[in-house]
């Protein structure tokens, strides 16, 4: 073997080793965000506080343009009245001016303070929206170089102020933040990404697993149930889930996947059993009514160890069957009403 050949083989092994090593480091969670790639998830994540319990994303443009939405609109008989009214007031056409939204829920605030935050990316007339808010009693203040529009606090029947203070801020051109006063201020604070959810390894691992769906939500299930203040009878029956990740892709129909991580394998097995039970019950119900069979999505249950995953697809055929059944039911109702009036 010549030296040239030997060098070539060594170089080849080196390239392969480097590639595999980077993959291996990334696999075990040691890859810094932004290394070899743009940051995982949408850019707006840098405004989400690190202690957010749930983070969600929706590609409004894709959803609005999807065949699924058009079918649902026909099915529901939705008109453009509300949309037009909103557009007249704010100048925002939800269908064309909004690109995507990122939302989060933070830890429960003191005294029931609003802990939600919505970041909307699109094309907005900031002056018009600000004027509208001020016209409705809002006040404007400067906070770290950003203009914050604060909504007037609510008053109870005794005249005392109460409730969450809502706020709005234009964080960047085409990016508006809406939510609780504290959350909007936190979004302004973490504008450089420091102290944002990008530093939350566990949450970002879930975000990174999202294969560019139209919408997704990830979060700590235990924190959500704790915030919901559910009665003990309900919480006792909820399987011990720590993390969850749900995603959906709209293109024609809807392909959705929900993943959950239980506290232990026993919990995961229990959860699988519950899902199997519900799926079997639904199948049994549909089996007796042939019309319903066409509307039943095929549910796939998967996952190993502590992870449980359910995926299903709502096809356009199912929606058509649902629409046909609904139309038939409407007709029958009308006939019954006619007969009663006679």
């Amino acid at each position: 073997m010549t030296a040239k050949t030997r060098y070539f083989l060594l170089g080849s092994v080196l390239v392969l080793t480097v590639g595999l090593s980077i993959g291996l480091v990334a696999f075990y969670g040691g890859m810094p965000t932004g290394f070899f790639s743009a940051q995982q998830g949408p850019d707006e994540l840098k405004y989400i506080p690190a202690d957010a319990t749930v983070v969600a994303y929706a590609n409004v443009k894709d959803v609005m343009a999807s065949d699924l939405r058009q079918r649902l609109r026909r099915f529901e008989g939705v008109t453009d009245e509300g949309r037009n009214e909103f557009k007249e007031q704010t100048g925002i056409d939800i269908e064309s001016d909004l690109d995507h939204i990122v939302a989060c829920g933070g830890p429960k605030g003191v005294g029931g303070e609003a802990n939600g935050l919505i970041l909307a990316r699109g094309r907005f007339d900031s002056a018009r929206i600000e004027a509208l808010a001020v016209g409705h009693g809002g006040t404007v203040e400067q906070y770290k170089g950003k203009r914050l529009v604060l909504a007037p606090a609510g008053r109870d029947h005794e005249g005392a102020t109460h409730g969450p203070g809502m706020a709005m801020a234009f964080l960047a051109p085409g990016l508006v933040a809406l939510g609780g006063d504290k959350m909007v201020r936190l979004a302004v604070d973490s504008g450089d990404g420091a102290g944002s959810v990008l530093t939350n390894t566990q949450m970002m691992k879930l975000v990174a697993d999202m294969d560019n769906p139209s919408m997704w939500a990830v979060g700590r299930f235990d924190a959500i149930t704790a915030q919901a203040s559910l009665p003990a009878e309900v919480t006792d029956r909820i399987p011990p889930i720590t993390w969850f990740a749900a995603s959906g892709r709209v293109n024609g129909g809807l392909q959705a996947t929900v993943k959950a991580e239980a506290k232990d394998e026993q919990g995961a097995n229990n959860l699988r059993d519950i899902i199997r039970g519900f799926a079997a019950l639904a199948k049994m119900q549909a089996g007796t009514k042939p019309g319903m069979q066409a509307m039943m999505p095929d549910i796939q249950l998967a996952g190993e160890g502590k992870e449980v995953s359910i995926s299903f697809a709502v096809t356009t055929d199912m929606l058509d069957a649902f629409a046909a059944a609904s139309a038939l039911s409407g007709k029958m109702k009308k006939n019954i009403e006619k007969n009663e009036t006679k």
Partner: protein
Amino acid sequence: MSDTHPVPNVPTPPGPAAPASAPGPVALPQQAPPFFSAAMRVFDLSLGQMLWSRRTIFLALIVGSPLALGILFRVLEVMGLGGGVRVGGGPVAGPTIFGGMIWLLYLRFIVPVLGVFYGTALIADEVDDKTITYLFVRPIPRGAILVGKYLAYLVTTVFVVLPSVAILYLLVVPLGHGSLAGAFPALLSDLALLGVGLAAYGALFAFIGATFKHPLVTGLVFAFGWEQLALVLPGYLRRLTVAYYLQALVPHSMPQDGLGGALQALFRDVPPVWVSLVWLAGYIVVFLALAARAVERREYVLEQ
């Protein structure tokens, strides 16, 4: 392993069409190396020849094209052009693009092409160059020559294809916020799969090269005629292809809509992984043995 290998100064047999050597058993000297040792000597000799031949330019071009595509995707993303790669109107994430490239470019094109061009040339090139005599007069089993050359082919192609896949992984997977971590298990499977694919196609085309008169044409017809046709035909004909068993090992799923979904639906009927592995191992062993047997028994006629 030594750096230089003297080629024995054996004159080409005279005459208009002289046999490379007489058929029948060849009397070997008592000090002849064992089969594996002989194969390794041929491997050592052939590796450099194969790696630095004109065929390597073709190899570099063919393996470089997916990388060029990956670089283009990255440049487009960095420049913020095109809104990422889109299939059926929807954006496609890096891991899906990577899976698609492995499936369509590497598995369905690059691996068979390399198998055809290198595999069929293992013996055919020596015959065409009239240098096979030099190899056959060496005191080593003829089968060892083929096995040694096959190993050289495997090392050459594997050491070019696999690093290119590793680079492609780093280039393409992060597209559209794709996760390197999430795609890592698929990368490992892909590397193993491509290695098995190169070995299986190499063995098959080595047999074709050692047996048929026009091996390149036969190989191309098999890879891009028979295999493509048999895979889309209903029935059991697809089981007589290598691609059918390789397809079962692909860890990626294609996009569900549009062309990707249609392609996946076409190749959805796949055997279990263990069946595929057994069949591919069988292909490698059987065709390599048949190729070695053909080289042992066949009388190669060198045209003058």
